């Protein structure tokens, strides 16, 4: 008996699922590398003090970063990695008014290395304010923006290095990896519909019938739609039928093909609805509802994949 059990466990440990290898390489590592490269280019553009190029590089950076954020699983494999995204992306987390704080810092002549002492002062959101709040930037603001971009690049590169270094751990622990991916998708889809679309559009529980575009993520840079699109795209990388194996491979194996189709359909519809709309989400309730369906679809497929009904152990009498 014991021998059988040991063998079963050994096989489980030694076995690394092909779809996980593919997810690690084609999605996690690739997206993180892309975001790392893009944020490095942003630093370069800022070094040259080229505002137009910097804004363009900023856009590319956030599109790349949102994909990494939407599928962020590093925290499930190392506690030290849990807080990394929040350190440089404070959307919906920073309660403090960093715009006022940054304006004060830019007006003062304190050395920037000391003035920008808080993490939030060097966040993507701080950088967005610095680059897009005004038409032109002072030398000091350029200098500050570069410090911010460097901090962002450091964090994103850390994530990239983590994924590379932990590839084996990830692919070798299938239940844990599945759980981490699914929870990333559940969490990301909730925040996508409720915060990123719902809060600004006036559909969320918190701001029902109280639309205000300025609550949108990347309102200043007018990149709200691009950010939402990037997040949906990242979900698609895991769930659509791709040339590489992805999470949908596992979902189908687990017997939740119908539920997968609900998710895919809702993702496709969300992308379509996004194209029709302006930067404002206020008149796009359908998008909110479609994203809600994505979120719901993940729970639905999870419950189906668990096959709880097959776990009938002596459901009979006594």
């Amino acid at each position, binding site marked *: *008996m014991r021998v*059988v*059990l040991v063998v*079963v466990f050994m096989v489980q440990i030694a076995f690394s699922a092909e779809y996980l290898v593919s997810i690690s390489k084609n999605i996690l590592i690739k997206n993180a590398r892309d975001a790392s490269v893009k944020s490095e280019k942003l630093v370069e553009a800022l070094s040259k003090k080229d505002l137009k190029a910097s804004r363009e590089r900023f856009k590319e950076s956030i599109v790349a970063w949102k994909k990494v954020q939407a599928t962020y699983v590093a*925290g*499930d494999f190392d*506690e030290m990695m*849990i807080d990394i995204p929040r350190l440089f992306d404070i959307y919906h987390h920073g309660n403090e008014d960093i715009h006022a704080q940054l304006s004060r810092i830019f007006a003062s002549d304190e050395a920037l290395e000391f003035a920008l002492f808080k993490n939030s002062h060097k966040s993507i959101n701080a950088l967005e304010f610095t680059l897009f709040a005004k038409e032109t930037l002072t030398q000091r603001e350029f200098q500050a923006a570069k410090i911010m971009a460097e901090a962002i690049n450091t964090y994103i590169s850390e994530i990239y290095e983590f994924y590379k270094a932990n590839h084996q751990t990830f692919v070798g622990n299938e*239940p*844990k990896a*599945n*759980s*981490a*991916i*699914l*929870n990333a998708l*559940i*969490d990301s889809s*909730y925040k996508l519909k*409720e915060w990123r679309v719902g809060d600004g559009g006036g559909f969320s*529980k918190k701001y029902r019938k109280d639309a205000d575009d300025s609550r949108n993520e990347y309102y200043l840079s007018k990149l709200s739609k691009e950010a939402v699109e990037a997040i949906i795209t990242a979900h698609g990388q895991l769930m659509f039928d791709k040339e590489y194996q992805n999470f949908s491979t596992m979902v189908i194996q687990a017997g939740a093909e119908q539920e997968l189709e609900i998710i895919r359909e809702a993702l496709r519809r969300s992308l379509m609805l996004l194209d029709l709309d302006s930067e404002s989400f206020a008149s796009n309730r359908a998008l909110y509802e479609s994203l809600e369906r994505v979120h719901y679809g993940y*729970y*639905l497929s*999870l*419950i*189906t994949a*668990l096959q*709880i*009904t*097959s*776990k*009938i*152990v*002596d*459901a*009979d*009498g*006594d």
Partner: protein
Amino acid sequence: MELLPFASFLNPDKRLFWVYMLSSLFIAGVYLLLYKKEARLNLSKKLWLHKSAQLDYLYFFVNYSLKVAIVLPVLFGAKEVALLTNRALFSFFDYNLITGVNYQLIVLLYTLTLFVVSDFTRYWLHRFLHTVPLLWEFHKVHHSAKVLNPLTFYRVHPVENLLFGLRYSVSIGVVTGVFIYFFGGAISVVEILGASAFVFIFSLFGSNLRHSHIKLVYPKQLEKFFISPRQHQIHHSRSHYNKNYGGYLAIWDSLFGSLCFSKDVGKIHFGLGEEEKRFSSVYQLLITPFINLSRRFV
């Protein structure tokens, strides 16, 4: 659920799984070596070919087919209950996914909760089967066994099967719905050869002896927490129907005042006494409850 009753022997989710049978046989063997006097009865033709036992063997196959037809559809409800629970929590408390938690801990917690909740609902349903007159008519089928053997476990009226199936769906559905709400995908049951670890361990320690004449008792302190095979045999005694309703755990019997220790009971008689006669064929096992009910309530 497999369509063939023989599949029970190969399925670790079933009490008749060959590993559990073998371990029960081993425990019984050791017991009989220690108590040689009891070997004669336990190995006798009189016991294994008793009319009541023969009926158990036959009924096992009949009940199996009926279960597939009646109970299986109900069990699919577990998924809906899980989803409903999850949605209800969302509408009351919005979103509360706890991320970055210790994965192994959640899995252990889920498995443990599932086991305890399921055992709890099993206790209460079993108790209701005895205390609600309408239900007792159906549960009599199980208690009409004059002698006990592992297949007596399946001597249960389809209506009772249905109730146990429903109970199971609701228990597992609610627990799963709650866990998914808080922990998302971090819940897949810890399994040993496909069965929940707890059930596996308990089944290994002789669940099959609950319905047998092997008087395996646990020390009194242990019988406060776990139902010993003897304690369930006592439940089958005509004078102790209202004791030891528990499945695996004895804590519910302790808590709700229905616990009875093995050492407090002497000789016992199984069956229903006079009424047994009306449960002596497959047809009767299926139909007598309805006849009794029509006499009682119409």
